[in-house]
């Protein structure tokens, strides 16, 4: 780049600019993201005696939490709920993503924004609304009873894993539509038309052309749903009822009520390992899939 002005000062200045631009954000994220995570990992190998934290290097906390059946129950419930929510979100989101990407014409921008908009409303308010809807005297029960489908309110709707799942499906649906939309709008219409020209039925066109080509979107959406579902705290805390605890609730309880930070930290590390394992698995899949496509 030949430029007027003194060349030497300019080169040193341009060389410095990238560092100066990145440094504040990188430092910030190290202090307020990397260090807190490192502290949790570090704390998980400390021990606690008489309510005091003592530096140590022990895996006893892990052994102790993994020996508690309640931990396994909570972990299983979290994983099951997250997996269920992911599958339901994929099924519910797919047709809408297809509609927006392929059939909505000039409305697609607006429709896409309208899908994501509820996601920006505070999670606490959305969950408060679901309590109005799902309660024993809530909107849904009143409607079902008014229609004469049942005489007594369905009590399992609120304060159960069912209500947690409904709340989570509602919360993550917009997140699943986005990557699906991106993947489906990358599929050329001519490929779909070609399959139809070759006398493939609509079902066959869908299962053999559209679905495989949108697989990256399905995987990305699934990872986000599953990872967020595993660690979600507000929805199970407000809708789950407290009889069957999810893993995140057990972690919070360990930290804030039992004040056993080392055990709580060990649980948090287990959660982190699960999150990163899911991420790594999907990255590997995406890399392999894009490698095949190339």
């Amino acid at each position, binding site marked *: 780049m030949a430029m007027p002005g003194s060349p030497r000062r300019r080169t040193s200045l341009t060389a410095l600019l990238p560092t100066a631009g990145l440094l504040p954000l990188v430092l*910030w994220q190290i202090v307020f993201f990397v260090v807190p995570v490192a502290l949790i990992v570090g*704390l998980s190998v400390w021990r606690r005696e008489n309510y005091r934290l003592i530096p140590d290097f022990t895996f006893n906390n892990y052994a102790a939490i993994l020996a508690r059946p309640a931990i396994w129950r909570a972990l299983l419930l979290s994983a099951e709920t997250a997996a269920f929510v992911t599958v339901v979100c994929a099924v519910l989101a797919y047709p809408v993503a297809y509609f927006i990407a392929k059939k909505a014409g000039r409305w697609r921008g607006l429709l896409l924004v309208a899908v994501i908009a509820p996601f920006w*409303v*505070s999670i606490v*308010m959305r969950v408060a609304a679901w309590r109005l809807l799902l309660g024993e005297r809530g909107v849904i029960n009143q409607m079902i009873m008014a229609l004469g489908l049942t005489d007594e309110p369905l009590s399992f709707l609120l304060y159960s894993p069912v209500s947690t799942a409904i709340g989570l499906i509602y919360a993550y649906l917009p997140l699943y539509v986005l990557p699906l939309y991106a993947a489906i709008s990358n599929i050329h219409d001519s490929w779909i038309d070609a399959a139809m020209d070759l006398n493939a039925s609509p079902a066959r066109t869908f299962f053999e052309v559209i679905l495989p080509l949108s697989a990256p979107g399905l995987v990305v959406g699934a990872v986000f749903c599953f990872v967020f579902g595993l660690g979600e705290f507000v929805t199970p805390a407000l809708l789950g009822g407290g009889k069957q605890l999810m893993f995140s609730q057990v972690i919070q309880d360990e930290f804030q009520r039992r004040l056993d930070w080392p055990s709580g930290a060990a649980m*948090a590390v287990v959660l982190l390992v699960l999150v990163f394992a899911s991420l790594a698995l999907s990255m590997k899949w995406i890399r392999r899939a894009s490698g095949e496509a190339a």
Partner: protein
Amino acid sequence: MNRLSFGWALPTYSVVLYAFLYLPIVVIVLFAFDAKSIPGLPLEGFTTDWFAASLGDARLVGSLLTSIRLALLAAVLSTALAMPAAMVLAWRPVRMKSLVLCLVLGPVVLPQLVLGLGLVVLFRAAPDLVGQPAIVLAHTTMTSSYATLMLYSRFLGFRRSYIEAAMNLGANEFVTFREIILPLIAPALIAVLLLAFTDAFGEFVVAWFLAGFTETLPIAIWTSLRQVISPKIYALSAVVILVTLAVSVSAQIWILGQSRRESEP
């Protein structure tokens, strides 16, 4: 559009799904106008009293103002951190770029619970910061990830030829930035500010852990959810939700229009 058509099934299904997405919002707005003091069906008459009542509740209004103030700070801070970083990431070769990206995007996938607890441990070293400063610092960490991501994609689509033209005409980096880059990305910058504000405003988990005696609006609602909820809460929530929707929709449409204009030849 392709020839594969599912007839009316697809549009009908989409209408039902949009109804599902907006059902909770409609319900909150509906109950905000209901005359009963314990919300439930059937609706018993129309009133706007709850709006007046919520504005008369000093604690509730105080938490709303706290939320607005803290979210404003977090939005400005995170945009200020994100903009130069996104510019460098999009335009310059960066050593260990994937590591930097992991660092920047990590807070998105990290469970909020874990970040919150980690920050609780961190702020044990600085107990004076617990409360409002800690909330701002934490929210800035979370929103700067989204802000960097959005600005990064905006800068990738930016026509570099404008910059080269300005530099060829003798403008230095600073003049180019002030006269060319800033005016062109200003809409994206405002959109990112608005979305960061919305995100920080509504965040609950991390704020709750770090709050001390501070009460943000999500924390106030959480506390009230433990008892029978007064319709005041729904009235205030209805207003906040409608403002949130208006802000986020206009910000996103703004981004959308901007990127469309850029991509047109």
